[in-house]
């Protein structure tokens, strides 16, 4: 890549934003927090995967999905299935009537592992499934909807229905899915205890690195022509279509990408929190994830990460001190962001904080130059 290409991919401002975020995630947070808080941040950051995907889908592509929890959940479930099988050794489950299968299957009179669980004995297959299953699911929905030009509000409502179908299905088929409890009590990954403090540190950093990989890819998409086409499409879909683009393919792509990001987040969630449950698949978490994105600024991938962190941090601390007020605050946040700050934290930064920093920086630089001047007086004057 030539220097110019790099510049185009990552303008100076974006580079600074990426670096600052890297410092926050990889240095500041781990230094400032104990492992309990850090693990919490790690959990929040798994939602950031979804939010970043939503920036591309919704902010850029204009596709508002109210079912991102489906993909988060599917990714998380794929991971959880592997971990559950690993922890369901005949020794650990000796108390069951059929030892060696996950506990909830035993409770539901299932005596052997169902076929679709079989691939999850293998970690590589499970990891592939984490990415592939949600993406294919998104692809099917995407083809069905976008090829027929279903968009906007209708798409939002249908994704919502999909989320509710999947929730009922997971809860109803509890013998295969763990039902409303989810898949719980996950302990080890290839023998490595994921509940220990050291594992939590490692997982936090793995999570951070994966998030940055996703962010960099998202940045690449943003800055590629594809990013501009998405913007163009959102504004003038017909114009793009009559410029010779198959618009639906672009929508499908970005929807699948969002799904894949969410799935990675879901898998990391399972690893860090130690269980997966249908409460992430439903409508409420899916809409909450949209608000993370909206608070961060629906056009800013970095903003989405901060948005996720801020909302969740507020949620945790608010609900610790004033549990009853939390919903009021959350509701007000939704309304406030939509009505007063449609471009979220990123917009706030761009319009107020950024110029201020710029000004201060210039002033600083000016005073620095003034300070340097006396040295040069001899030659210059």
């Amino acid at each position: 890549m030539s220097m110019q290409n790099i510049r185009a991919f990552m303008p100076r401002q974006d580079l600074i934003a990426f670096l600052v975020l890297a410092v926050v995630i990889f240095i500041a947070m781990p230094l400032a927090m104990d492992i309990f808080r850090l693990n919490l941040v790690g959990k929040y950051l798994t939602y950031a995967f979804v939010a970043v995907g939503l920036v591309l889908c919704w902010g850029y592509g204009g596709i508002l999905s109210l079912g991102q929890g489906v993909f988060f959940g599917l990714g998380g479930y794929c991971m959880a299935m592997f971990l559950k099988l690993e922890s369901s050794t005949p020794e650990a489950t000796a108390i069951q009537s059929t030892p060696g299968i996950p506990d909830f299957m035993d409770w539901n009179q299932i005596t052997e592992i169902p076929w679709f669980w079989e691939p999850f004995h293998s970690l590589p297959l499970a990891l592939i499934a984490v990415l592939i299953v949600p993406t294919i699911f998104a692809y099917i929905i995407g083809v069905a909807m976008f090829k027929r030009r279903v968009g906007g509000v209708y798409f939002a409502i249908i994704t919502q229905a999909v989320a509710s179908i999947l929730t009922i299905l997971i809860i109803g088929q509890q013998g295969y899915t763990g039902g409303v409890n989810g898949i719980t009590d996950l302990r080890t990954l290839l023998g490595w205890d994921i509940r220990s403090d050291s594992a939590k540190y490692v997982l936090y950093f793995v999570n951070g690195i994966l998030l940055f990989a996703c962010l960099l890819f998202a940045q690449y998409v943003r800055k590629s022509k594809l990013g501009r086409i998405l913007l163009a499409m959102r504004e003038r879909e017909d114009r793009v279509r009559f410029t010779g683009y198959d618009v639906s393919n672009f929508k499908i792509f970005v929807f699948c990408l969002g799904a894949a990001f969410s799935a990675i987040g879901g898998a990391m969630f399972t690893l860090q929190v130690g269980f997966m449950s249908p409460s992430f698949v439903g409508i409420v978490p899916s809409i909450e994830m949209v608000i993370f994105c909206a608070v961060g600024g629906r056009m800013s991938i970095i903003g989405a990460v901060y948005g996720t962190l801020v909302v969740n941090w507020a949620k945790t601390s608010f609900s610790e001190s004033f549990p009853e007020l939390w919903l009021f605050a959350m509701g007000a946040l939704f309304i406030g962001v939509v009505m007063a700050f449609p471009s979220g934290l990123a917009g706030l930064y761009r319009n107020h904080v950024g110029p201020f920093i710029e000004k201060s920086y210039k002033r600083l630089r000016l005073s620095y130059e003034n300070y340097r001047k006396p040295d040069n007086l001899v030659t210059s004057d």
Partner: protein
Amino acid sequence: MFSDYSTAELLSIFAMQGFAGLILFSVFVLMALGLAIIFGQMGVINMAHGEFMILGAYVTYLISNLFSEYMPALFSMYFFLAMIVAFFVTGALGAFVEWAMIRHLYKRPLDTLLATWGLSLILQQTYRTVFGAREVGVSLPDWLMGSVPLTDIIEIPINGLFVMGLTLIISVAVYLLMYKSQFGGQVRAVVQNRPMAGAVGINTEKTDRFTFALGCGIAGIAGSAFTMVGSTGPTAGQLYIVDTFLVVVFGGAQSLLGTIASAFTISQAQSTMEFFLSGSMAKVLTLLVVVGILMLRPQGLFALKIRH
């Protein structure tokens, strides 16, 4: 599947399931009519629709308490008053919400979705703070609670009949209002061409506010009626929202008749399947079929072919 039953029983099954379906149909229509007006006519996605319904239910609860406290003699009639008050209270809240929030967002339909979701959270917490987290029991007048026996198996619940009658009355009223009155003409004019409607002297702002308030008011009546069949709690409204939207979208958002037809289709399908499958699977299958059909026919089942 049918071998377990005798012919007479089978006939009874179909009669009773048909009736159960009709009750479900009435419930769907009541839920969806308000939304069809707001979403279909104004393009606003009101995620707080369920909370407006629950407001109607709480109003009914308050009035029933009021009557049993101060006017026990008239208790058997309180329900009618409750529905009227519920209509006006939710309508007034609707008008306020339109003024404070919705009117600023007409150009951003997806954003109305998020903002009204925020509203729904606030309303939920308000109910919780005011009425407590527990469900409240709305006591009904005795005449609403019985049933009319037809045969020894088939009995027709009176509250079911009441809900059906109410649905009929409201549907007719809404039809007359939207298609036969001057107000309806104005609403449709505003929907079709806002600047033109404004130019010919229709007060578009007022029309919007009334339309939104009307939709909310109907939600209030629905909530009031639901105290007969469902629960009244702070979060009960959320249960309805997905179903309601699907009914409206499935019917083709623009058409009220479509909404009614779609409510009929979905309710009959669901109640028939419920009889032969487990409740959960019936629900999943119904939703799947609806979503599947919507994918094949995104404009909804009953929408007119319109010129793009």
